[in-house]
């Protein structure tokens, strides 16, 4: 029995039909979606969208600078001033097609250089205020028109991130192919017994009920389209994926394509805290960027036509010091680059005011200054892309400085 049959077979058994399960085989055209990818650990934005045209760039980075376009290990030319890290070559076609753009020198107004506080503020959407207990993506879900089904939002990973914390239902699945293995709880007798235990309206019961409903839906989503996916065939044989993200990205694309009710997805990737031996065209950072670029490319390809209606945001809590440190790495900084990828993106352009790398232009004499507040980038883009009411801006990011005045980097 192959895996497809096994999964399809197991689906017939465990659960009752829920009303929201009726669905089209493919997402209908025009259903807008949002995917947020968080690079935890503070990615060095100056090595992603490289300001090789800045007079000071090669002076401040002794060993980790990337050469200009055309040189050995050089950046990929973007606009004459900035170049893309060569490990991200799979993304260049999207730039050329105008569906990939960047906001350079983007970040939070809060001065913290703590990863954990900075991530918290970017996830709860209130810089400087840790007490906000829900996340802006969960608040965004509440603004979407209903029905609010258990798989409206999908988070990869065994823990629920702060960005999705809140009253709106969110399904989560582990990273990696293990996500697709059936569990004992999927067996009808077992599920029924626990359903009696968790039939109430308390916290655990609600979580259990969401779990039952979302597992059923997600297994259906993952089973569909399985045969046309080489990555999945590899996973069926039990072979570990060479790297986690491309596999998860392909899985996410398949699920989103199958299930139009998935409106929001979130993934976090670690390993960007490059205090030593960051490298340039090769090395530690390049080794992280490569699967990121490949995964994003897989996500776009896998989404197929749905890509036209999907906005993918790649963000990180802050950037890294402009000057290289004493160990070929970089320490915690301030401004970094935010990525926008999708059919509605005003792409092919590095947005945002460039503050420059001259000593007197740096934030606290050491970091790239922030010229675009992340809230003024994400808020207006998400609202226009998802066709939310204008008033949602204040719900997502209550104290964003520019509100409706910020340039909107996606098309309606």
């Amino acid at each position, binding site marked *: 029995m192959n895996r497809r049959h096994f999964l399809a077979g197991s689906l017939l058994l465990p659960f009752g039909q829920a009303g929201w399960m009726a669905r089209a085989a493919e997402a209908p055209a025009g259903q807008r979606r949002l995917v947020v990818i968080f690079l*935890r*650990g503070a990615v060095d934005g100056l090595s992603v969208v490289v300001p090789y045209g800045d007079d000071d760039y090669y002076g401040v980075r002794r*060993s980790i600078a990337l050469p200009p376009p055309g040189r050995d290990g050089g950046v990929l030319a973007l606009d004459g001033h900035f170049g893309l890290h060569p490990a991200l070559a799979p993304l260049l076609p999207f730039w050329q097609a105008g569906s990939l753009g960047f906001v350079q020198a983007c970040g939070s107004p809060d001065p*913290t*250089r*703590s*990863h*954990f*506080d900075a991530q918290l503020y970017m996830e709860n959407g209130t810089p400087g205020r840790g007490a906000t207990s829900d996340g802006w993506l969960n608040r965004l879900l509440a603004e979407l028109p209903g029905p609010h089904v*258990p798989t409206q939002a999908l988070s990869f*990973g*065994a*823990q*629920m991130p702060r960005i999705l*914390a809140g009253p709106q239902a*969110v*399904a*989560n*699945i*582990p990273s990696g192919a*293990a996500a697709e293995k059936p*569990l*004992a*709880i*999927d067996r009808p*007798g*077992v599920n029924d*017994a*626990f359903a*009696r*235990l*968790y*039939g*109430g309206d*308390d*916290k*655990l*019961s609600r*979580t*259990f009920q*969401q*779990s*039952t409903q*979302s*597992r059923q839906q997600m297994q259906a989503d993952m089973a569909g389209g399985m045969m046309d996916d080489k990555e999945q065939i590899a996973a069926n044989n039990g072979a570990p994926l060479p790297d986690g993200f491309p596999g998860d990205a392909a899985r996410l694309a398949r699920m989103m394509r199958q299930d139009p009710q998935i409106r929001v997805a979130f993934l976090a990737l*670690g*390993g960007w*805290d490059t*205090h*030593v*031996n960051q490298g340039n065209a090769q090395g530690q950072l390049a080794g992280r960027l490569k699967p990121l670029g490949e995964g994003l490319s897989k996500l776009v390809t896998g989404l197929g036509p749905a890509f036209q209606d999907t906005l993918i945001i790649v963000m990180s809590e802050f950037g890294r010091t402009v000057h*290289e*440190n*004493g*160990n*070929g*790495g970089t*320490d*915690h900084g301030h401004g970094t680059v935010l990525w926008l990828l999708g059919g509605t993106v005003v792409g092919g352009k590095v947005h945002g005011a460039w503050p420059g790398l001259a000593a007197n232009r740096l934030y*606290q004499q050491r970091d790239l200054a922030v010229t675009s507040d992340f809230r003024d980038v994400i808020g207006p883009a998400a609202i226009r892309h998802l066709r939310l009411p204008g008033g949602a801006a204040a719900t997502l990011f209550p104290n964003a400085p520019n509100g409706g005045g910020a340039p909107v980097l996606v098309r309606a």
Partner: protein
Amino acid sequence: MLRLMCLISAAILFGPSARADEPPIMLPPAAMTLEGARHALERLSFGPRPGEIAEVHDQGVDRWIAAQLSPGAIAESPALTEALTNLPTLADSNAQLYRKEAMLRRDKSDDGKEERQAFAKAVAGDAMTAHFDRALLSNRQLQEVLTNFWFNHFNVFLGKGFDHVWIGNYENEAIRPYVLGKFRLLLEATARHPAMLFYLDNWQNTAPGSRGAKGKEDGLNENYARELMELHTLGVDGGYSQADVTELARILTGWGLRTRPERGPFTMMKREPDFTFAFDPNRHDYGDKRFLGFTIKGQGWQEVEQALAILSAHPATAKHLSFQLAQYFVADQPPPALVDRMARTWVQTGGDLSAVMRTMIESPEFWAPEAIGNKYKTPFEYLVSSLRAAKATPSDPRPLFGQLRQLGQPIYGIETPDGYKQVESAWLNPDSMARRLSFATALGSGRLGKDEISVNEAAIRSTLGQTLLPQTDKALAAADPRLRTALLLGSPDFMYR
């Protein structure tokens, strides 16, 4: 010629704290009941085993706690002692493990690669097995709970560089011996351990342009200095500035590992690098520093000792770590008045962790009805407590490590220095619910990895105290008898400690 200076342990500065004349533990009456015994076992151990609630109650909850606060006097479980003797790399020194790993790394052939992977797997597997077995089997349960807590507080990651060979030693030599002593010593032990020096990069932190600076070691690295204040001591709101981070990084220059060959003064004998702790004066910044309002004279490794002393005694550290302890042991949102009293004890006793624990355990807040059964178990706590309740000892716990990974809490597997979160909001979500209940179903029907075990419903039931939640009673009454044990282990009563 490069000379590295080795340090005499600072332990001579601090005597062992006396325990013989400790006054008895004073508990409120509610603590001395059967439910009090259960609460003590839920919070101060990895969960009650069948019969244990009655044993602790009969012995006296206060006396059981007093005994747990002096773990050295508790005879260790023979089962644990035997399990640990089957882990051959556990006793190896950091230098031995490093040399073996480094030697295997030099062999670039396929065979060499395979051998290195096998070695890495064996060493990390031994360390993880020991960690798991101790939590499951040790009679010194509070010491193990605290080892888990403080390891997580001073987290290092199995997957960074050489850390997989040092991680077991880090837990055994830098964490466990100090969890009920002076915080200053615990901090010192972590600060000197290769696993920490490597994990947070301080081994490369070098005064720019110094005599020993060369290549990729020619300048400051702030990583350890920042986390030492933000996570290990003061807390992010502890009142330090970026200037303090930079100054502490300068103080820490040269505080690292023996990474370069060293020659003795009277002989041409060369000592090969073994990556043990060493202070390299040639890479140290000898300028004076201004740190947290103190002037620290440039003089070498003694500056680090001064900085660690300042940080250990700082009121912000007392507050930050009292909060974390109370959050772990009492409530996700611990009562502020309790945290204040613990912090006061911290300051009064110079950071005596046993005294701080005593203040917490003797508080009415610890035994208050709203504190009972309100801590949602982490995956590790859930797994270990279920095995304890089922009196199940896996012949090899390694298959369970994959379960922990899928539940989001692999042993030694969190990459970031903040460690795992200890609050419900981090762990209660749909996927983990499905996985916990599936684990409960397997264990409840006697399947544990490759083992078949016998589970006793009544025994498991006895670990859950006198009454169950009404929904649990109801579901049990309606259940297929073969699923009753699974339901008990998967009940809301069992999800909380």
